[in-house]
């Protein structure tokens, strides 16, 4: 019996369209990813306002202070006390002076003796934080030579 000789063919799929799409996706995610917001804490529910616009020039000497509450999955407060969130640590606002002293030392080491005066403290506080706590924090910062403050809010688009 005679067999017909057939040459085996390897089907190579055309990869070009897939690579095009994948590069498009990478470009999209690279543009959308905002590494500057890494200091923002998700537990803080910021107040929102129409006039809260991002600054035209980004500040280079900034200390971000996140103040908020312990909340459960539904967003309900589990503790009425407001804390400063620093990574996994939670510090009572009135006890934050020690950290501010340390920040002052670091600012002076990095930027010179007037470093702390040039540094801006960016307060990201929960909308329900008692205002007195924010004032106490500002006072503690003033005692450590910080003069510039900015109050952070979500931009409200009507």
């Amino acid at each position, binding site marked *: 019996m005679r067999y017909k000789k057939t040459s085996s063919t390897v089907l190579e799929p055309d990869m070009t369209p897939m690579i095009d799409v994948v590069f498009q996706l990478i470009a999209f995610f690279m543009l959308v990813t905002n590494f500057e917001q890494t200091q923002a804490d998700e537990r803080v529910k910021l107040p929102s*306002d129409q006039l809260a616009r991002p600054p035209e020039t980004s500040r280079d000497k900034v200390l971000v202070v996140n103040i908020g509450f312990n909340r459960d999955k539904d967003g309900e407060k589990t503790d009425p006390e407001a804390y400063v969130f620093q990574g996994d640590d939670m510090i009572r606002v009135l006890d934050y002076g020690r950290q501010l002293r340390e920040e002052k030392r670091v600012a002076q080491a990095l930027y010179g003796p007037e470093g702390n005066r040039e540094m801006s403290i960016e307060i990201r506080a929960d*909308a329900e*934080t*008692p205002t007195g706590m924010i*004032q106490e924090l500002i006072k503690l910062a003033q005692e450590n030579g910080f003069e510039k403050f900015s109050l952070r809010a979500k931009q409200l688009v009507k």
Partner: protein
Amino acid sequence: MRPRASRITATKIEAQMAPMIDVVFQLLIFFMLTLKIIPVEGDFNINMPLGKQAQESNEIKPPPIKVRLIANTDGTLASLQMGQRQLGNDYLAFDRLNAEIGKLIGRRDNPFADELEVEIDADYNLHYRHVIAAVSACTGYISPQTGKPVRYVEKVKFAPPRRPAAG
């Protein structure tokens, strides 16, 4: 003379796509996992040096505009006042405050506009969102024509905290 036929044949070099696709997918997965969708944030600047006395000068500075925010026990707004004027506690109170500040600033070429300062004096337990609303009402408004912010007062400061009485 007969030309010698060249025996060099063109060979197609195929680039290895597999490692590149591996790396590209790794990058794609990294960016997908690190993506956090965060709403746009803005800020209000306040400049509060501690105990800095006014420099001696012949210039007479206008007194700060005092904005008083009184809280209910649950931290909600009980009353908003500008100077001696009651502006209410409803959602239009901050619009009234904005209008009052606008009247004070008056025309755009007001020579005192840059000198004006607002002092926010809020109760200790007042929710911070009301302070942000007051700061916003004092600093300007969004122009309905252009959609861009128009600034009123740049200088905002806080009064000392009103600590609740002990006991």
